[in-house]
């Protein structure tokens, strides 16, 4: 370890609270975000746990439908806006984008800090809404239920999401400018790691879609507070308008959640297969295609809502189109494993879990994209299972994969490998136990958002709740051993996995200025050497 001022690790560069709360270092801001979203993840998870407890009995165990409705609304709102949407971009993205670019920081370091403060402000307003009594509208806020009939703290919840949206926009803008302007000498667009491409596509969606959400929520608040008729037909509004506007944001937001996950997996699979990513350009353009087509499929949330036959058919077709690039990615990851030298370290196990669960989530998406099948399955537990396979089985697994992959870089510590593998396997098993029965429940017609349900659904609900117990354990495991590793973990070398990428060329944890000398890029990413090639010639 050198003692030159230029090589102080970012973690050692100041120990006061002030040095953290007023930092403009992207790495420290990423840590601030880690703390915040970990809290929201477990808060949202706790709500889900209580929901699964309630559903152990057909009569509902929580005693009150109002409590149950508020729990699932809180679960959705916290998980979507305070975990899934920000998760990978603000933590791994914030930390890694400058490192992968070979840059000193993001383009606008102070804007980055402002994003965090906006996020925290939003988080506190959201927590206020929860503590004050919550909302019972679901995370989708359908009108006129939300605007005129609901008795919860709707305006507080809306304000929270509104503010969080500005945090997203600022982050997206920062990433776009950074990727355009701060690439190291020699790093052309096609020499960028796929993680950067994915976050670029994500950022474009954030910047274009989030304002629509902000406007929609504002209109909703106006209708609720001032009685201006926008969505309620009784006062001259259109009830479907809200759904169009809401899904115009919220469907692209699904890709905001999953695209960064694709980026993470595209880094990990090559690293642990010791082989370059199969079909790099196809994977890259698949991300861009998803970002573009993702804007044109919102209507598939409304096949039974009362839209026209023509629009339903067009949106069904476009929904199948947007699934094609996702399928391409899955095949490319498998192609990457072909003829590789596969290592089964924890990040790879999480990544393989991701591929399996995401593929299942994607395939069940084909069910709900087929118009007549959607009529039967929508609004049932089938849809609940489908998007949890994509969002939780897919996205959360990818987040954990990335966390385990870059943990040594971020913290300078190694976690106990056996525990990491046990965590990956427990989550995979617990997830399937929880959510697979819900596909069957949905086919059998069990509606979602029911506090109590008919007797015939009891057995499968018991199974699902039992699975939730395993899944909860699976999520608590990493919380335990990763925290443990911060204090007692073995020190990590600069590149413990032997991975390519500029972030691995700097010490672990990186110094405040990231690179002592600006790196120069001459190679395409993922240039892994074949272990055989050396001995074979």
């Amino acid at each position, binding site marked *: 370890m050198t003692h030159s001022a230029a090589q102080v690790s970012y973690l050692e560069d100041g120990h006061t609270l002030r040095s953290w709360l007023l930092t403009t270092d992207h790495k420290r801001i990423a840590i601030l975000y880690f703390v915040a979203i970990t809290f929201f993840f477990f808060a949202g998870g706790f709500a889900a746990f209580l929901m699964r407890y309630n559903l152990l009995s057909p009569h509902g165990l929580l005693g009150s439908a109002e409590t149950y409705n508020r729990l699932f609304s809180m679960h959705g709102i916290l998980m979507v806006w305070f975990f899934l949407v920000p998760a990978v971009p603000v933590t791994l993205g914030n930390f890694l984008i400058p490192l992968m670019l070979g840059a000193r920081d993001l383009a606008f370091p102070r804007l980055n800090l402002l994003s965090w403060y906006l996020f925290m402000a939003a988080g506190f307003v959201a927590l206020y809404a929860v503590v004050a009594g919550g909302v019972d509208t679901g995370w989708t806020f359908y009108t006129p239920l939300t605007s005129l009939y609901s008795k919860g703290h709707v305006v507080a919840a809306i304000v929270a999401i509104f503010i969080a949206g500005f945090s997203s926009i600022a982050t997206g803008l920062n990433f776009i400018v950074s990727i355009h302007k701060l690439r190291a000498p020699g790093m052309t667009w096609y020499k960028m790691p796929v993680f950067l491409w994915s976050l670029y596509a994500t950022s474009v969606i954030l910047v274009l879609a989030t304002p629509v959400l902000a406007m929609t929520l504002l209109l909703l608040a106006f209708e609720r507070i001032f009685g201006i008729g926008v969505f309620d037909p009784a006062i001259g509004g259109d009830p479907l308008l809200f759904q169009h506007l809401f899904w115009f944001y919220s469907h692209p937001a699904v890709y905001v959640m999953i695209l960064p996950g694709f980026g993470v997996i595209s880094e990990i699979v090559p690293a642990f297969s010791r082989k370059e990513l199969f079909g790099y350009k196809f994977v890259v353009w698949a991300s861009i295609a998803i970002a573009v087509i993702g804007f044109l499929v919102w209507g598939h949330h409304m096949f039974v809502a009362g839209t026209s036959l023509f629009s339903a058919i067009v949106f069904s077709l476009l929904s199948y189109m947007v699934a094609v690039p996702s399928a391409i990615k899955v095949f490319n990851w498998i192609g990457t494993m072909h003829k590789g030298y596969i290592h*089964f370290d924890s990040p790879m196990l999480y990544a393989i879990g991701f591929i399996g669960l995401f593929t299942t989530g994607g395939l069940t998406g084909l069910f709900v994209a087929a118009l007549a099948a959607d009529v039967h399955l929508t609004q049932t537990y089938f849809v609940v299972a489908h998007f949890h396979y994509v969002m939780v089985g897919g996205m959360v697994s990818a987040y954990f994969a990335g966390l385990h992959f870059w943990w040594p870089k971020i913290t300078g510590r190694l976690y106990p490998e056996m525990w990491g593998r046990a965590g990956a396997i427990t989550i995979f098993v617990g997830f399937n136990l929880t959510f697979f029965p819900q596909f069957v429940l949905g086919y059998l017609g069990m509606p979602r*958002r029911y506090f109590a349900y008919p007797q015939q659904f009891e057995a499968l609900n018991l199974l699902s709740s039992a699975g939730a117990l395993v899944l909860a354990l699976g999520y608590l495991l990493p919380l335990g051993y990763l925290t443990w590793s911060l204090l007692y973990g073995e020190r990590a070398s600069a590149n413990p996995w032997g991975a390519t990428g500029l972030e691995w060329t700097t010490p672990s944890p990186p110094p405040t200025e990231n690179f002592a000398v600006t790196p120069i890029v001459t190679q395409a990413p993922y240039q892994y050497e074949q272990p055989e090639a050396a001995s074979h010639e």
Partner: protein
Amino acid sequence: MNGYWPSATLEGREVDLLLLALLLVSCAVLALVFGLILLYMVRYRAGSGVHRGARSDQAWRFEIGWTAATLAVFFGLFIWGGDLYVRLFQPPADALQIYVVGKQWMWKVEHQGGQREINALHVPINRPIQLVMTSEDVIHDFSVPAFRIKHDVLPGRYETLWFQIDRTGAFELFCTQLCGVGHYTMTGEVVAMSQPDFEKWLASGAASEGHEDMAAAGKELFTAHGCSGCHGEGGVGGSPETTGVQAPALAGLYGHSVKLQTGATVTADDKFIRDCILTPDKTPVAGYPQIMPSFSGQISEEKVLRLIAYIKSLKSGSRT
């Protein structure tokens, strides 16, 4: 579950067939994906000495191949699902219409004969049934899983849903659009009966005492709310000479096209008549001064439905 499988409707059984096809496609893809991953995990694990050979430099051939294959399969599924949906969307012309009003948290049903029921819907088998549905408050959704159908029920609109059941039985009805605290209690049953049993049920007044034919009830409302004051008795239309004001004739109106002052031409369906009663300013009829007052807030959704039933019953032959 009683009566769930096979589905009690032809369309439901066809949806099941589509779902089976989707399941088979999914299983095949999952088997391929998991199979390859497991195979590679074993065969190409780091410690395995298997010879890797040269890597293909023709990656794009694979890319084109699996992209084309995916597109083809997806397109097939799209066509299948879409074709069936088009049929689910369009009711047969001779369907028996029944009116459904959703409110927090119950389903109110009214038959054309005026029989009313709550959280239950009695229908005959082997005959297409079309529900004309609206809501008094928030959005609900009328869902009968045994028929594999559902449709949102919106305030301010008439949405329709049709089905034809081919065996008797009772089938669960759910509201599947979150509508407030009592959402989970907004359930009921659809009782499918043979035609004679259904007629017996209609006649027995099992639904409600002293029911009155919907159109007849609508006729009373037509007078009570002063509609006949301008539109004339029997909806024959008004002129300065007869009723004192110029008002369009309503007899024979239903199902015909109407020209609006905006230049647009619309078909006089349930929704149009409803709009004319509740928000007349939005549908000014060409050739008449827009002096009709709005009845919004004065007439319940059910009364509007009865008025519509009455207006529907006025044939042009009754014009004098």
